[in-house]
């Protein structure tokens, strides 16, 4: 079992969702995130006081899947989120020790799917 975490551009969320659903990855969670990478900073000016904004708005998409689905998830996210510009984001793949479906108490590979 693997946890795939992707940080993507907020405006690409819908594309990523579509391509994940097309690949039959139907169980995801999404949250807002701030982050910095290679994308250049931008400036805000409020009542004459300037501020450099180095944390950009991003969306975090998570999908917990069995091992054989990892490649499909990664391909789908890239298909949906790639623009070719700096700031497209990153995908991390982490091992999962266990998974429990709260409704039934099932564990492991059965619970995740």
């Amino acid at each position: 079992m693997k946890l795939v975490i992707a940080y993507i551009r907020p405006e690409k969320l819908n594309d990523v969702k579509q391509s994940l659903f097309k690949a039959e990855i139907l169980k995801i969670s999404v949250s807002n995130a701030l982050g910095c990478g290679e994308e250049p900073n931008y400036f805000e000016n409020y009542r004459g006081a300037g501020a450099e904004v180095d944390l950009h708005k991003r969306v975090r998409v998570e999908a917990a899947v069995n091992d054989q689905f990892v490649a499909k998830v990664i391909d789908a996210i890239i298909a949906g989120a790639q623009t070719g510009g700096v700031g497209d984001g990153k995908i991390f793949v982490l091992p999962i020790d266990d998974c429990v479906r709260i409704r039934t108490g099932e564990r492991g590979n059965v619970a995740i799917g």
Partner: protein
Amino acid sequence: MMKTPRRLLFSSLIVFGITAPAFGQDAAPMTYEFMIGNVWMLFATALVFVMHLGFACLEAGLTRAKNTVNILTKNIGIVAIGVLTYAIIGFNLMYPGDAFVGKLFGFGGFGIGTDAAGVTPAYNEGYTYWTDFIFQAMFAATAATIVSGAVAERVKIGSFLIFTTFYVALIYPIIGMWEWGEGFLDSKGFHDFAGSTIVHSVGGWGALAGVIVLGPRIGKYVNGGVRPIMGHSLPLATIGAFLLWFGWFGFNGGSVLSADPAGISLVFVTTTLGAAAGIVGAMATSWIIQKKPDLTMVLNGSLAGLVGITAGADVITPMESIIIGAVAGVIVVLSVLLIDRLRLDDPVGAISVHLVCGIWGTLAVGLFAAGDGRSFLVQAMGVGLTALVCFPAALLIFFLLKITIGLRVTPEEETLGLDIGEHGMEAYAGFEIFTTQ
């Protein structure tokens, strides 16, 4: 807004139109002029009342989400304190009538009340005694509300309300009496139609004193630089600015003190043109200096134009009102930037809008409408004498509060937010508020 002297009214009454039942034996008959004037003055009173909602929205929008309950509590508390103190002492300090002890100070006794003649044209050709009181009472509270925004996000709520009580109960009516209560500024020919000095500068001096005694908010000035502390709701701030403009039709229009068609229609025009020119002036200045038009500066510009036009709205021409408003719009942006550089932390720009543009508007009467008893020198004298009383008095009250019960919340409370610290509640329960400063 100088009222017709009460003691002259009985002899100089011009009565025309219908005759309605008289109340009491020495009461004058009702006239259309009296009845329509009275309705207009009460409507104007309600418009001035709406300005308090405008202040509440503007100040809440230009400060952080964690201090919203605090700023709204201050704003509604001030209206109550303003009206109550004006009923108990303020009205009779500002309009002592025959109970003069001089042209500097007078007091007509505690409380309000009138005889039967007070609700007839015998009191005034344009309104009753009660209308007179409630219109003036609504004005009084605005002077204290001006201070609220400047000291926001760090002042203790109890200490602020005590300051407000003393300032609005004593300082505001005494200054007001000099001009509108037949005091010495009025006899010298000082002209402040609806209160660029009497209301806005009085509030502005209080704001400046408060900012000086309190010091800046944590995180505003770091390592020699000015850091932005962004307001959390510019839509709310914009609603506030619109509501203040709306209320200003009553603030200036009501200050005609009758429904005189020539008077109120001219005042509506000069007031609106002043605000519009203020917006354009501030937008242009902000665009040039800050490279992009800053909405908060533009909002300040509308109010700057209104404050600037308030002293002379009845004696300047519409074309002059455009110049006065535009200059106010330029001044307010420069002033906000300068005051920030001076390490005076005024979160909403109250000092720039009300004090600086109040002074400009008062002096502008001397520049554009001199003659007929008005002069630049007397206008400047009025500005100076107001400063001489208001600034030290406000400094003293703030300083006494600082060394007794304390004026500023702890750094821990300021960081956590005054909503939790002072009130134990939050403004947006159930909403996610993103706080990094």
